[in-house]
């Protein structure tokens, strides 16, 4: 099975920035319902800052690429999403190390480390109505698929489907973490904005990493 080159990871980040740009008003609308109406604008600001440093990204290994993304997000996004997405890429960076490319299995390990970082920082578990509800099942599906010998494209598509299912599962939940938890019962009936942006991350991966 072919490895994922650094250039493909750059394409992934670029595609994700594009999805965030396209969906920023929708993400903000979701956040107005149960949060503080800033998720789309904040993520967009952060990923535009990442794109502005694209020239720097090209000279880095995979770990360096993820670290640069992490630091930019930490400094520009703000809110919980800056700390959480920043932590995700920072942990992914440590796990990826100074490699020019990753095998699909290595990428699974990298994703796992990123998830562990988010769980530690945000202290959220599946079912709390957060991004973890999409991220955890997506990574599980990805690793299962790779472990079963399926190709990278298939694994990324499984991950995206699992993330989407995770996202849908957040709709009826009463939030237990983040600002939405202040609403109590009134948070039920709305999709979680962080889980929604997480789906886009996997959709962007399925559109770029194996091609």
């Amino acid at each position, binding site marked *: 099975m072919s490895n994922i080159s650094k250039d493909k990871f750059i394409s992934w980040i670029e595609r994700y920035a594009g999805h965030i740009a396209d969906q920023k008003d929708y993400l*903000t609308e979701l956040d*107005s319902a149960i949060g503080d*109406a*800033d998720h789309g604008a904040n993520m967009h600001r952060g990923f535009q800052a990442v794109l502005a440093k694209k020239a720097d990204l090209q000279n880095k290994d995979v770990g360096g690429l993820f670290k640069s993304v992490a630091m930019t997000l930490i400094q520009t996004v*703000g809110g919980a999403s800056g700390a959480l997405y920043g932590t995700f890429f920072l942990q992914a960076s440590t796990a990826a190390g100074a490699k020019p490319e990753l095998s699909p299995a290595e990428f699974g390990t990298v994703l796992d480390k990123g998830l562990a970082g988010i769980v530690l920082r945000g202290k959220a578990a599946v079912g709390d109505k957060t991004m973890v509800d999409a991220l955890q099942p997506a990574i599980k599906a990805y690793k299962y698929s790779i472990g079963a010998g399926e190709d990278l494209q298939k694994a990324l598509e499984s991950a995206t489907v699992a993330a989407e299912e995770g996202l849908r599962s957040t709709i009826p939940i009463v939030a237990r973490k983040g*600002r939405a938890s202040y609403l109590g019962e009134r948070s039920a009936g709305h999709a979680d904005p962080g889980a929604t942006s997480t789906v886009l991350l996997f959709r962007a991966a399925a559109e770029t990493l194996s091609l």
Partner: protein
Amino acid sequence: MKKLINSPENVVLESITGLGAAFSGIIKVHTNPNFITRADAPVKGKVALVSGGGSGHEPMHGGFVGRGMLDAACPGAVFTSPTPDQMYEATKAVNGGNGVLHIVKNYTGDVMNFEMAADLARAEAIEVEAVVIDDDVAVKDSLYTAGRRGVGTTVLAEKICGAAAEAGGSLKEVAALCHKVNANGRSMGMALTSCTVPHVGKPTFDLPEDEMEIGIGIHGEPGRTRTKLKSADEITETLLGPIVEDLPFKSGDEVLLFVNSMGGTPLLELFVIYRKAHEILTKAGIKVTRSLVGPYITSLEMAGTSITVLKLDDELTRLWDAPVLTPGLRWGA
């Protein structure tokens, strides 16, 4: 959206630049990353106080920087927590060698970003303590939520702890005092109207002309219940009841009564609320010995009010009365 802005992107930077120009003798504005320090920072040997949060709550926190209150404030984007690099640079800039206290309002983003900043500062051997303020009785405190929000008590904690630091208190002492203020203060707010975040361009929520939102937070996030609009006296009872029951405040207690505007409510109305709150507390045998009335922790142009009651003792009263010289709060100095 009708706002006195040039562009949503520049509103925070342009506002803190104006604040710095208006109060150049008291504060200094630093940019990229953005933070505001006392003009004379760092004050050698003094414990430094750093706070911060999303913009849109002015005068909090930038307006509370100065002698007898904060050493630094970090303004995030509107209603968005500041980023770790801001608190890290602010912490370094005001560190007088005796440690730095971070005063953090309990919002998920604020807590996480302050934690990351504290990690960075500690890696450079700066002693950092953080106290999280969570005084909003509108939010049920349980293991299954992010906990109570930090609201009005934050202003009182920053004033009281600032006085203690000015008087030479150690980091441990000032942090313990901050916990004490948080433990003795309770708040609840309400909204008559929503507010519009500049980069969003439309109101955060719809609130019909004849309705109000009880238990609102300071970010335009909806509260717990929405009801038909009532009289000022009834609203005061609705807010004060849960506050008094929660601590609970008892007959014989001496308290500070803080009636706050969410931004759009004028003093004319705030004093109507204050009058009723004072009456209810007095009838319950609770003695109001100190007061604060005005827009101090706001939510952009939202109309509405929040009430905070802080139980006082001799120490807290003395520190409240101590001189303070900031853009937003000043007496005795």
